[in-house]
């Protein structure tokens, strides 16, 4: 039971962190639960589908289907997160000026909400498909120990939900004005980390082989497999053995996000009167 709890918790943990951040980011937007809930639900359904067809998926692209699929959905999440940041840079002024009356921003708010719902869906899909495979294996095998394993799995799931709640409540303690800057940084690092992870998947698939020298090994200091290591892995993309290409892409995503945000903020500043 404990083994099942640990395995499920480890997978749900990352999705929990991401959902917690997204909840905090969308703190003042109407209908956010509908969007985020929809993202979670779509992620769960997609995870079950991916698990059901895992065998077939991994046979694609000469056995590299899983890796390329993961790289692709991570790529989608990176684009969505960056788009969200750029959108916020454009409308952040209005939101900052009228923190309480953000009627216009909310009316248009469904755009970034869709992006964030996709991100939540991707997070649940990635972590959930492994949980689904694991629990399916348990259910398919002997019935005797299956029940206690399922209970362990459910407890792991609840702990993951607790992580989500703690992340959300922790971020809410930050004053609204600082929250905007904090979540922008968080989302940028989240996107950069996901991009570096996508690079790792492309490297495993042998689709990306240049600059694949490991730059450092900090596993002795903070193992990626430990819980703090996993938290940092999700939040800022910490890897104990990054390759040159991973570092390059990581920094490029941060630079491009910063550049795009400044650019859209300036363009928007030029036509201050014109709506979004």
């Amino acid at each position: 039971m404990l083994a099942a709890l640990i395995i499920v918790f480890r997978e749900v943990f990352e999705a929990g962190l991401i959902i917690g951040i997204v909840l905090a980011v969308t703190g003042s937007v109407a209908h956010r639960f509908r969007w985020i809930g929809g993202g979670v639900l779509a992620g769960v359904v997609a995870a079950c589908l991916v698990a059901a067809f895992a065998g077939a998926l991994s046979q694609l692209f000469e056995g590299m289907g899983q890796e390329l699929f993961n790289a692709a959905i991570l790529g989608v999440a990176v684009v969505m997160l960056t788009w969200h940041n750029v959108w916020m840079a454009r409308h952040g002024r209005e939101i900052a000026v009228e923190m309480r009356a953000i009627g216009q921003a909310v009316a248009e708010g469904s755009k970034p909400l869709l992006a964030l719902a996709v991100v939540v869906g991707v997070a649940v899909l990635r972590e959930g498909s492994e949980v689904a495979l694991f629990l399916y294996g348990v259910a398919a095998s002997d019935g005797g120990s299956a029940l206690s394993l399922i209970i362990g799995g459910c407890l792991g799931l609840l702990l993951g939900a607790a992580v989500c709640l703690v992340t959300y409540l922790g971020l809410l303690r930050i004053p609204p004005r600082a929250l905007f800057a904090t979540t922008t940084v968080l989302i940028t690092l989240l996107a950069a980390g996901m991009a570096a992870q996508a690079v790792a998947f492309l490297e495993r698939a042998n689709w990306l082989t240049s600059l694949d020298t490991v730059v450092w090994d900090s596993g002795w200091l903070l193992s990626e497999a430990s819980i703090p290591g996993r938290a940092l892995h999700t939040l800022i993309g910490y890897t104990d053995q990054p390759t040159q290409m991973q570092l390059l892409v990581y920094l490029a995503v941060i630079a491009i996000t910063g550049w795009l945000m400044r650019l859209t903020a300036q363009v928007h500043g030029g036509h201050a009167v014109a709506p979004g």
Partner: protein
Amino acid sequence: MSHPTLMPIRLTLAAICATALLHGAPALAQQAAEVPLSYSNGAFQPSEVRAPADKPVVFRVKNLDAKAMEFESKSLRVEKVVAAKSEGVINVRPLKPGRYEFYDDFNEKARGALIVQ
């Protein structure tokens, strides 16, 4: 988005991607050492395998069990779910001589090692 200052970054990025992919092509042709493994009744068969140093390694893990397993190794930097009754292919970069342990992440009692020499 048509701001002129954006173009150099885009072009640089495209160039980086293009060179990365072009460099990737010859490496694919480099002969890799194949390491077949099977997994049944929660154990690797064989539990110790060998491969030459400084050559890419390709694990072919046949999961004969009715449950999915996850082939994982910290030292090899790999992690891959292999569905029930199917085969997983795992690519590994050229390695220095040494002992590299791997295990099933869904069942940590199942362990094995790759000896590179």
